[in-house]
């Protein structure tokens, strides 16, 4: 009976049957997407649907002297026109601050600007019409008189006393400042044999989800209820926000998230135009749809990054890192973004820089400043791509100055695998990481020695290849310490409800949403494994606040680790209840029974006792046959909150192999390797695909992507022709391997995997480019590494 273990979930040191966990099972919900039969929000149909478009400021900073919507109102098909004042009567403004980011400040932000626009693209009026095209026709008839105001685009000037303050009430252009230092940092730099320094620049990125932000708001005046169909990562968060800012009771607001065409952090924020759409539905008492078209997406989807980080590292001549020091400046646009704030990315850079290493001293300074560009906020990786690039860039520079191999230099300095639990100088606590196992595995996987030999040989022929390494840590499964403690009404816990249907099938309702990463699939795998049933018996339902338990949703690499544990606990409870019924029916001791293959069996004899459909039949239709004091409970709900650690950290290491053409400055990506430790692997194929997709998103930032602005705050490349996302032709094949160190904070043991690729890839590519350029005495540290920047570094232009 060994094959029929009671709890078929892997336990350390055992060879227990792991069921579906750890198997590469294709996602059941992908089939509809493969036939073009998904249900993205724009695929839904509504009677009397109206379409809203927004008139957006053409100026980066300007006062609205007058706004005349009368001609637009007369345009064919137009139903209504509203300015910011009209919308504000139905939707209250918000201020995006968190109390644990001390001193963070931001002005009140309205759904539609009421007095002035603070970035190019900020909505200042809404047109509602029968069709989108008619609404756009009317946009052209709006007459506005603007008074242009001083524009701040260069974040380096934001704190200069001579620079005008964007929000005079706030006193200055500083959104948030943080200083962190350990006691011995000055001493460490003073006694170091080597101090290296460099300044790293990171361009502004945006997510470019292929599906634009989409919302349909449908207000029912009879019930004073609002149903919102929205491609969002956090339905319950949106329910709370819609409820509070539109003054509709929470229970009357329902947020439904069907298929979502990519999120990556873009769809986890409150967008003024989406709030306005909901308000307009209330005002017009009919369903209203807004889709951010591609040009609007570039101007209004959150941007991210745009950091300048001065970095220093102190080391001994033996190659021991003593200290890191950073000074990070980031420009976030004119508002901190609601409700997560725009202080988090910089804060993460402070928290995470130096992350993989065993140094004791650290100093960081962070200035988050307002500018008149689009707002920035949390986007895949959140601070990690910066912290990792800064760390790994300066580490490589130190190794180079010491004449040490970069892999060897890392081996000397990575936190030992037996040092856990470990407290990092910035105060973070690591439960269990595996840097050295990952490094060893990576070097073997890529055949590092052979690659180095080949590199040397090719250099003799004038071919410049580079190998770049990037070790990293990553925040996953965040506890309430991330947002909740700062006052944000963002759930850190998630829940799963599991119901045995009379037919023996199982329905699993989870508060975490699906955005294509495969949450639904792994929830089904966990439920089927725990319950001893086959995959096709499991149906997963997510993305409906009226149906699922309450929870946080999908962000910060938390879906599988937190939602998965809730499913695990819920399935365990349901299984116990099923066996209670079976034991009552059979009049045997419950401990003799278990479930496998959709059937209850006798653990002692292995004999099948009854199918789950029989449990369902009796439990639902013939409970009269059960003992008088027995009540069957075939629906159970369990929740899970990560506790004990602020974050469940993962670790990993990436390597990039590139070839740089020193005549053209072009970089060819030849290959990429990753060894990642995300704890228990629920579905290797899906984890690997998270890595690969994330890596390419990271490569985008390293080589191609940057939101370019003119000095007067005009975005210069706001189209897909000009903002360069990675396409198939230039991307490398990627080899992924794993070390598994399950977290003990949950029974499942799974850590997050969604952002590691994006976090580490830019650093690996940067180090590879610099490794290739080393014999040419050139170095780059400003992302994206365009051909021109590389040619400049080479002194060719």
């Amino acid at each position: 009976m060994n094959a029929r273990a009671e709890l078929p979930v892997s336990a350390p040191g055992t060879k227990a049957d792991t069921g579906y966990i750890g198997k590469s099972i294709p996602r059941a919900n992908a089939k509809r997407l493969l036939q073009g039969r998904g249900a993205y929000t724009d695929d839904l149909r509504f009677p009397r649907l109206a379409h809203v478009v927004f008139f957006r400021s053409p100026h980066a900073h300007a006062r609205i002297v007058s706004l005349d919507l009368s001609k637009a109102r007369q345009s064919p098909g137009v139903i209504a026109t509203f300015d910011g004042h009209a919308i504000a009567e139905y939707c209250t403004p918000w201020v995006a601050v968190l109390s644990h980011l001390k001193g963070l400040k931001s002005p009140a932000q309205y759904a539609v600007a009421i007095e002035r626009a603070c970035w190019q693209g900020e909505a200042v009026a809404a047109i509602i019409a029968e069709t989108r095209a008619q609404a756009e026709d009317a946009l052209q008839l709006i007459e506005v008189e603007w008074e242009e105001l001083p524009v701040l685009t260069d974040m380096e000037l934001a704190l200069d006393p001579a620079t005008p303050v964007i929000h005079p009430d706030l006193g200055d252009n500083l959104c948030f400042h943080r200083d962190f230092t350990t006691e011995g940092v000055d001493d460490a730099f003073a006694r170091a044999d080597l101090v290296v320094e460099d300044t790293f620049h990171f361009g502004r990125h945006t997510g470019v989800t292929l599906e634009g932000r989409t919302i349909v708001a449908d207000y029912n005046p009879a019930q004073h209820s609002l149903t919102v169909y929205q491609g969002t990562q956090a339905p319950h968060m949106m329910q709370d926000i819609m409820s509070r800012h539109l003054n509709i009771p929470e229970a009357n607001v329902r947020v439904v998230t069907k298929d979502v065409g990519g999120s990556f952090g873009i769809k986890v924020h409150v967008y003024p135009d989406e709030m306005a759409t909901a308000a307009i539905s209330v005002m017009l008492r009919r369903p209203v749809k807004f889709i951010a078209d591609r040009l609007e997406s570039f101007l209004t989807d959150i941007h991210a990054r745009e950091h300048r980080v001065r970095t220093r590292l102190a080391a001994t001549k033996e190659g021991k890192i003593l200290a890191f020091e950073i000074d990070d400046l980031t420009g976030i646009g004119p508002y901190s973004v609601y409700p997560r704030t725009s202080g988090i990315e910089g804060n993460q850079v402070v928290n995470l820089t130096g992350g993989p290493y065993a140094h004791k001293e650290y100093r960081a300074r962070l200035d988050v400043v307002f500018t008149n560009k689009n707002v920035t906020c949390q986007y895949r990786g959140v601070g990690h791509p910066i912290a990792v690039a800064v760390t790994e860039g300066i580490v490589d520079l130190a190794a180079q100055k010491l004449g040490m191999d970069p892999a060897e230099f890392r081996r000397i300095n990575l936190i030992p695998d037996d040092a856990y639990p470990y407290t990092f100088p910035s105060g973070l606590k690591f439960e269990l990481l595996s840097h050295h196992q990952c490094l060893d595995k990576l070097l073997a996987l890529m055949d590092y020695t052979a690659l180095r030999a080949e590199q040397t040989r090719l250099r003799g022929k004038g071919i410049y290849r580079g190998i770049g390494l990037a070790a990293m840590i990553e925040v996953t499964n965040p506890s309430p310490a991330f947002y909740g403690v700062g006052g944000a009404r963002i759930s850190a816990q998630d829940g799963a409800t599991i119901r045995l249907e009379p037919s023996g099938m199982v329905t699993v309702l989870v508060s975490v949403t699906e955005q294509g990463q495969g949450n639904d699939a792994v929830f089904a795998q966990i439920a089927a494994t725990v319950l001893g049933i086959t995959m096709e018996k499991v149906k997963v339902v997510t993305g409906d606040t009226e149906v699922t338990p309450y929870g946080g949703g999908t962000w910060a690499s938390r879906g599988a680790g937190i939602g998965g544990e809730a499913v695990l606990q819920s399935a365990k409870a349901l299984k116990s209840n099923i066996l209670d019924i079976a034991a009552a029916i059979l009049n045997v001791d419950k401990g003799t029974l278990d479930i496998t293959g959709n059937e209850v069996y006798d653990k002692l004899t292995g004999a099948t006792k009854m199918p789950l459909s029989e449990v369902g039949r009796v439990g639902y239709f013939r409970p009269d046959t059960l003992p008088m004091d027995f009540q069957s409970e075939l629906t159970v709900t369990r929740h899970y909150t990560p506790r004990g650690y602020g974050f469940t950290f993962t670790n990993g290491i990436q390597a990039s192999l590139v070839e740089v053409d020193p005549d053209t400055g072009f970089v060819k990506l030849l290959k990429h390797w990753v060894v990642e430790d995300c704890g228990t692997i629920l579905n290797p194929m899906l984890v690997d695909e998270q890595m690969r997709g994330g890596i390419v998103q990271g490569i985008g930032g390293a080589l191609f992507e940057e939101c370019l602005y003119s000095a007067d705050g005009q975005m210069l490349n706001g189209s897909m022709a000009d903002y360069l996302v990675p396409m198939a032709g230039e991307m490398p094949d990627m080899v992924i391997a794993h070390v598994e160190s399950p977290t003990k904070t949950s029974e499942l043991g799974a850590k997050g995997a969604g952002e590691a690729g994006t976090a580490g890839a830019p650093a690996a590519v940067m180090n590879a480019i610099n490794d290739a350029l080393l014999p040419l005495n050139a170095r780059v540290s400003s992302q994206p590494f365009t051909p021109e920047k590389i040619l400049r570094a080479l002194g060719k232009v």
Partner: protein
Amino acid sequence: MKAPAFDYARPASLAEVFDLLDRHGDEAKLLAGGQTLMATLNMRLSQPGILIDITTLNEPALTGIRSDGATLSIGALVKHREIERSAPVAEQVPLLAQAVPHVAHIAIRNAGTFGGSVAFADPAAEYPACLVALDATIVLVSRAGERKVPARDFFKALYETDLQPGELVARGEFVAQKPGYRSVFMELARRHGDYAIVGVAANGKVAGGVLSDISLAYLGVGGIPVLARQAMAVLEGQAYSTELVGAAQRALANDLDPAADLYSSGATKMHLARVLTGRALAALAEGA
């Protein structure tokens, strides 16, 4: 991003096209594949009163790839993909055959037309540079009949050509590649199918290592495709050598004065044009 309202006509003959052009004047735009026009319409960068869809015109003057051995002509309505698949083009106008795969992506090449690209005259596009390098002839047609313009005179300024009101591009005529001549098309684009930072269309005779009748036309370096006459003069009748290449690269300073684009300064474009020149000449000389 919905196009503004416009009217649409699908004339059955050139005569009808001319009538429509007469009637609507500046309000009319020709739809000849629309792979650029449609994008500008969706962005409301252009608001024509009427689109005259000529893509289905069945007029011999504007359709088909024809060759009499000495001259190959490509009709304005021939799609990029047809050029890509054409054996006569590959044989007789190899420069163009090398350039076509760089034109955007297959779904675009299935709809975009030769004439549309020529008439739109994007200085970063591939065909105009090839036409200039090959000293091809552009045949224009109006109610008054046909008019032939050398490609080297056709492109006037940024998006400005010799096309007159009431006139459309009928076809391009290319002298079939002569014995001893070679062609090389190269461009540097950061992603496959993007408009290039800079590109070169090179053609000329190579005999016993001696270069003659070399033409070099550059794309992405100015308002129009630029013929590098000074560099070409340096090369004329000279044996290929690294010194010669260096001299030609230096001479480009007198031929090109590239303006910056979003990602590359004029100086970078100049540098890259020189690099491409070296590579193109090496490829010509080596017959690669």
